[in-house]
């Protein structure tokens, strides 16, 4: 082989990917060609540097934590499947009963038809009669159960936490408090649940929170923490406590920010 080896061939040789039929000839050429041998050494060095640079930014994979989280998701998924199956069976049973009832009512002399004639029809007539205008009061409507709050939590990055609220509604109420544990979190209640969340290392962004309540939980152990509301640092961790630095807007014009117990 007189021609020099192509770079792709050298790369495949270095990666052990050259087809078996080509490998002996390529290795023989490399052994006798100083120029190709030097090119192979240089290419190996490039590959090793690329690998080292990539590895320089790696972090440990959170295997145990991710596995727990995945197990929980699988469990929820299984529950969801059972729930769907139960609902389908229930719907089928109701449909069968309804069809059976209709069929029975259509048969002259059947007990179902007799019952309809004796009870349901007279009651309907009574409802339509003028002296029966006072319908029984409807049962008091139950207050809607409050929806569960939505939220997100992260671990501090190097002990630092930054919570950033942008385009928060002026009537939003923000409460920051210190908590035990190692995660910082944001909970949205009421109309603030319209907010969208985004996380980055040590940072939670909350966008478009409506006129509800936002609770910010800062780990007591965090080295530093701030809560920014509409562009202003409103709360900062000062030693073992949280301090309100500045209101988010003029009195009555911006979200109310306070520190909770």
């Amino acid at each position: 082989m007189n021609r020099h080896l192509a770079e792709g061939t050298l790369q495949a040789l270095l990666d052990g990917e050259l087809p078996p039929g080509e490998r002996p000839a390529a290795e023989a050429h490399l052994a006798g060609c100083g120029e190709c041998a030097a090119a192979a050494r240089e290419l190996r060095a490039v590959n090793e540097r690329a690998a080292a640079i990539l590895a320089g930014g790696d972090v440990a994979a959170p295997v145990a934590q991710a596995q727990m989280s995945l197990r929980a998701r699988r469990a929820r998924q299984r529950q969801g499947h059972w729930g769907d199956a139960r609902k389908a069976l229930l719907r089928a049973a109701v449909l069968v009963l309804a069809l059976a009832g209709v069929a029975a009512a259509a048969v002259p002399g059947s007990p179902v038809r007799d019952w309809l004639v004796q009870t349901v029809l007279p009651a309907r007539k009574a409802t339509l009669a003028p002296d029966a205008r006072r319908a029984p009061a409807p049962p008091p409507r139950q207050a809607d159960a409050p929806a569960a709050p939505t939220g997100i939590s992260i671990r501090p990055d190097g002990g630092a936490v930054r919570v950033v609220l942008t385009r928060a509604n002026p009537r939003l109420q923000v409460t920051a408090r210190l908590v035990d544990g190692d995660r910082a979190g944001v909970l949205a209640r009421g109309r603030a649940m319209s907010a969208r969340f985004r996380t980055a290392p040590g940072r939670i962004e909350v966008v478009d929170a409506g006129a509800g309540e936002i609770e910010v939980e800062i780990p007591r152990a965090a080295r530093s923490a701030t809560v920014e509301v509409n562009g202003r640092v409103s709360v900062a961790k000062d030693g073992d406590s949280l301090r309100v630095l500045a209101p988010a807007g003029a009195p009555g014009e911006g979200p109310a920010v306070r520190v909770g117990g």
Partner: protein
Amino acid sequence: MSRGAAVDYDALFRRLYPSLFRYLHRLTGEADAADDIAQESFVRLLGRDMPEDEARLWLFTVATNLFRDGARTRKRRERLLQVRPWTPAALPRPDEAAERAATVKAVRGALGTLAERDRQMLLMREEGFRYDEIAKVVGVAPGSVGTLLARAARRFVAAWDNGGDDGEQALG
């Protein structure tokens, strides 16, 4: 994970997750995002019965597609958010964390100078995929993988030496 046998997903997860997480962390530069995408990929794997090698390639393919979809959404969201740059003066960070964050950013910057296909090939090679697997996922001829990888590695190292693009690029 052989066909027909009961699949031990926990064992499979422990074997494959670290590599998938590393690949995604290099792509996204964010540990939370890498973890989210990796988990979602595993969730989609549940119930599928395929040999482990095939499952590994399948996971990386799904994860790459999820990353691409997420990158498009993220770009739109970032435009809306108008995220301001991190200001170390306002919030001091420990030196070690700041240094690591800078390294991750620089690696992403250098990767951002590569075409998406080259970036994916380089990262898949680093995770030990064979040329035929890489070729299948990125859609090139197996015979061209060596050439493309050599070029990608050179460009990546050169971009790193030149300081990348002096900042983080949106990948994807």
